[in-house]
């Protein structure tokens, strides 16, 4: 006997692929900003030397993220309502307040940080205005760094919370989600920094090793978050874990997602451990960046988009077809395109004379 009829109403998805882009980029920006901020307070060491790479990641992703967010509003024209109608019970609304705080901290801090670098190293002619005047801004920098760090933490808390708060989506409804989103963001941004240090800045092997260690910590944190969610969920029978266990039991697609997550996580961890053992390994570590970034992005896709295909009531999975246009593939590519454009310009500004020589070879980086 075959089932002859499927009766479901057609519904639009609430979170569009734009949201995945926003969560991805803002997560990178916030975690990179925290690391950059740490360099402000832990001066004269590895943290400070990590600042150029951290700021490159934070600023490039930070300017792209709100643009993706705006598009996710379905009607972007109404963004100003977040400010004319403050809604304190809504995480999303709080986020609308946190985001400008973070952006002010990030851009402000970067402007002052960059000013000092330019003053020290000389600015390109077209950016001469950056060093205009005689004030140093040094006294303001810690304050802006603090604002940036607080804003970044706010971003991590609010983005996780606005998803977690939805009770109707059992899978989302767990505090662990906030931690997991943050940890995968650290994983992504540190991977990006590894890449930047290796390919853009003349970072020393020691500095790269330091970043690689942080990256490994992020991986361990991600793993701990996942285990914590699973173990906690198993012990307390949390709705989120139950829903996940049901999906794994019922759908091959979710089994694949699960297997890939575990597989990629463990692979990255093993690779990072292996690379830490030798300088050559450290020099190769930037190769992990694409995979780590893809993993961080995919986690957001699974959480935001795939979960929406799970019926709140009823059986099976809803079919979701990625539209080719603006609310789909073109939008996703567009945001990456914007980031690419930013990345064509920004490294030149931040790295200045520190920029990696175009003829620099892998071996030189490794032994540099």
């Amino acid at each position, binding site marked *: *006997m*075959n089932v*002859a*009829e499927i*009766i*479901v*109403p*057609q519904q639009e998805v609430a979170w569009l692929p*734009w949201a995945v882009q926003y969560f991805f980029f803002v997560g990178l920006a916030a975690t990179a900003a925290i690391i950059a901020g740490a360099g402000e307070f832990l001066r004269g060491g590895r943290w400070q030397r990590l600042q150029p790479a951290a700021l490159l990641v934070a600023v490039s992703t930070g300017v792209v993220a709100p*643009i993706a967010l*705006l*598009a996710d509003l*379905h*009607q*972007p*024209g*109404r*963004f100003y*309502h977040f400010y*004319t*109608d403050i*809604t304190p*019970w*809504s995480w999303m609304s709080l986020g609308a307040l946190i985001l400008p705080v973070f952006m002010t901290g990030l851009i402000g801090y970067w402007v002052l940080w960059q000013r000092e670098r330019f003053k020290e190293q000389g600015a390109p002619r077209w950016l001469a205005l950056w060093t205009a005047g005689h004030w140093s801004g040094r006294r303001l920098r810690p304050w802006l760094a603090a604002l940036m760090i607080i804003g970044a933490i706010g971003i991590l808390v609010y983005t996780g919370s606005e998803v977690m708060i939805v009770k109707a989506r059992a899978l989302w409804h767990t505090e662990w989600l906030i931690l997991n989103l943050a940890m995968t963001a650290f994983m992504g941004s540190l991977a990006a920094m590894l890449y930047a240090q290796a390919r853009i800045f003349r970072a020393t092997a020691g500095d790269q090793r330091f970043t690689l260690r942080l990256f490994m910590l992020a991986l361990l944190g991600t793993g701990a978050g996942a285990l914590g969610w699973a173990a906690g969920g198993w012990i307390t029978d949390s709705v989120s874990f139950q829903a996940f266990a049901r999906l794994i039991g019922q759908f091959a697609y979710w089994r694949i997602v699960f297997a890939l997550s575990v597989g990629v996580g463990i692979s990255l961890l093993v690779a990072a451990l292996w690379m830490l053992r030798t300088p050559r390994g450290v020099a190769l570590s930037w190769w992990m960046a694409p995979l780590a970034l893809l993993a961080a992005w995919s986690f957001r896709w699974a959480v935001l988009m795939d979960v929406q295909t799970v019926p709140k009531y009823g059986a099976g999975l809803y079919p979701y077809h990625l539209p080719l*246009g*603006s*609310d789909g593939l*073109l*939008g*996703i*590519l*567009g*945001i*990456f*395109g*914007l*980031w*690419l*454009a930013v990345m*064509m*310009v920004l490294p030149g500004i931040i790295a200045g004379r520190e920029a990696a020589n*175009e003829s620099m070879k892998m071996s030189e980086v490794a032994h540099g």
Partner: protein
Amino acid sequence: MDNKRRNLLKGSAALGGLGVFGAGYVDPVKKAAQGLLSGSAGEPTTDRITGNALPPEFRIDAETGELIPAEGQVVSLTQCLGCWTQCGIRARVDTVNNRVLRIAGNPYHPLSHEKPQVYDAPVREAYTGLGGDPGIEGRSAACARGAAMLELLDNPQRITRPMKRVGPRGSGQWQTISFEQLIEEVTEGGDLFGEGRVDGLRAIHDTETLMDPENPEYGPVANRLLVTDAGPDGRRAIVKRFTFNAFGTRNFGHHGSYCGLGYRVGSGALFDDMKGFTHAKLDWDRARFVIFMGTAPAHAGNPYKQQGRQLASARTDRRFEYVVVAPSLPNSSSLATRGNNNWVPIRPAGDSAMAMAMIRWIIDNERYDRDYLIQPGPAAQEAAGEPSWSNATHLVVSSENHALTGRILRGRDLGWTDSAGDSVVVDAVSGEWMAHTMPRPAELFVTREVVLADGSTVTVKSAMQRLADEARRLTLSEYSAECDVPEATIEALARKFTSYGKQAVINTHGGVMNGSAFYTSYAIVMLNAMVGNLNAPGGTFVKGKPYTNTGAGERYDMANFPGKIGPKGIFLSRSRTTYEASSEFRRKVESGRNPYPAKAPWYPVSPPLFTEHLCSALEGYPYQAKIWINHMGNPIYGQAGLREAIDQRLKDPGRIGLIIGIEPFINETNAYADYLVPDLVTYEGWGFSKAWAGVKQRMTSARWPVVEPRVEKTADGEPISMEAFLIAVSKRLGLPGFGDNAIPDADGNLHPLNTAADWYLRGAANVAWDGGPVPEAAEDDMRLTGVDRIAPVLQAHLKPEEWRRAAYVFCRGGRFGEAPAKDAGPVTHWQRPATIWNEKVGSNRHSLTGDYFTGCPTWHPPRFADGSRVERHYPVDQWPLRLTSYKSHLQSPHSIAASRLRQIHPYNPVGINTRDAEAAGIQTGDRVRLVTPGGSVEGVALLRDGVKRGAVAIEHGYGHRELGARTHTVDGTPLPGDEAIGAGVNLNDLGLVDPTHSSGNAWVDWVTGASVRQALPARIEKVG
């Protein structure tokens, strides 16, 4: 790489990235700009959970239980027109924006609520009872279709202004015109389309002059007007008043003949009701075993929604078993309760053979209810304590070619002076003649020679004997071969059916619409007579009487008026009259010719037939129609094969000169119209409708304008509608019964009929008074339901003592009698006999062959008008498949414009048996072409085990060409069609033209003229 090249590369990458970004971000920017410019970019959020959603229509205070209605909203109780079940609904209305927000069920209405609210209960109490969660018992629901139909109100495909065609007929080019121009042109005629003179209504408004003195039975010139509607949507009375009694044409028709007419006439034959064609439903509360043959409760069938609940309750709450006999498995069957129900697949059109086989087995094995069948009349019935009686013992004159052939032997035929009108039976004890009115049983099986009073000798047989003879024409195995149901299954079903006394029922409906629909239906319902279940608890019952509304009521006599005309002459469809009484027949006999065959079939036992009207009117046999007014009727979509049969002739203005279509949308039939008149949808207008069958208590649903109509208004400020059109035409022609002094009240004072409200509000007063006046509506009732909005209209039209009682009826969406207890059994009893032999059928001849019709069930295969079997024209080796049509549980024929229904179920696949499909190399999802001798369609194959081998099942309601599927041009601007509305296939596009029908009509049942859509011969092929 030097710096230049490096920068060039970087620049290109940056530009590329920005380019993709720009392309991807254009839409959000555009949206934002539009939102900001149009001011629709958002509003402040009012609630953290519900956002800016409208507040619910009611809140019930958790502490006090008090019902608190929302500001700016009312909940109006009115009537649905999503399908012809016409359930009561409650419409949540946004009174600020004049919108219907949601449709659910009317808690007072028997079709919407299994335990309806007591009629006297205040509306507040009824609404409060809907709150909380008392489970299914407390719920009053609409079906998916009913809930979606509100989309029709503001549908872009609706027409709101009168339109006139500017291109050739059927070309879809229109110009809008004023209502006044519309009335002027259709009444006065003229060179309306630049194609020459067209007669207006005035030209044919002549009720005195015979249109054809050679054939005086054709009646006056006025009969050249044909008026049709779709169905009894609650507004038919005024259409009939205009047609019959004001204009004076004989010709009125409706969708029945392409809906379930074959069933209705077969049922009428059993119930001795060849005028009203009463049908019965099963007593769900007590029945123990039911066979559904060609009908599907909980899937389709009237009353659709109620039967769904009844079936669900019966199969879960108590001992109840049922079998569905159908070529395709409907939703009526349930695997969840598989122990008590089963599906018996049957070859399309095999039902007749199967029912006759069961009758034969029951008679041969003496499993019939003898104590019931031997009671010859009401006195004997009462003496024996039977719930009804039958004419099984009555004697049928069975000699051929006698004046009384096929008639029941009456006392007068034997020269009796007492009881001359009584039927003659044989006393079971003495064996002597006896009047059927005696309180004694009679002999069941009789065959005797008898000398009549006029000296002639005839053979008489009891009706039961005739039935036995007919049933024994074929053996069980021959029957089994015809229906492709194993003999053992037939026997088992017959045995089971006769094992529950009167608590076994067989029920049927549209599944019988095959090429021998009448005899199929008669045979199936005859099985009920075999177990004597009519009026019995657990058996079958007829519905309660509706409350008189726009008829001869207690307050206003709306059926009679000064100057009322009675139509004369025969129907265009040659029905309810005999060929033998025609001048044509007389002329042929006088000239010594064999009078048979007639030029085209006559239908002596049928009502007026929409299925024949058009072809007759176009072909001029019996006579031509000049003007056709069609209110919502859609035979071009609904009648199998009609498009193919008459498309070209209908497009020819030389045949029917003027076609006026009245409807909110342009349907497939009105697409041929010369003028289109907008009409109201159910939420905008007035009306009264009844339940079809299946409701024990008395009931009448009322509808009223719960929102302001979307159509334009006439110069007098009336919304343009069917009523406004008929009133304006009547007044312009000076017809009686319209205008001032048209409606007499009980005291003989005359009241006007100038507006729809003049008509329906007086009808509401009649409803309020029938069977005792209802109370006056309370202020609170009127406020909660929004009736307070129309209160000024009520006051203006009705007497002071009437208006609040009429308001009481509108507040409750109609008037509903007390619901009987669940174990009460039938409440309204059918008084006439179950006619085992129907002499009105049995004494008439078929006009093409000259053969007598058989007055009791007998087996006939599907056949064409001249009696030839379908296979003779279309051999099985070329046409191996048989199509079966089934009702959709989502779409009705006119619901396709509701987009949310299409979202749920966007098209209808072509259902093929899995093994048949595999043999033909067809997979689910393949595009297939279905071909019949009448046409071909392309659809998507769906392999189903739930389709009988050799059958192809198609759900009705899709494959539209109009109702928004096609682009029309209005005033030079395209009104774009929507492809999604045209999705799927329409089985009726595959209907056959009867090759033996001289007028070239679509294939109809040879007895009743009912459209043939079941068992169409077909073949299937994979496309591409």
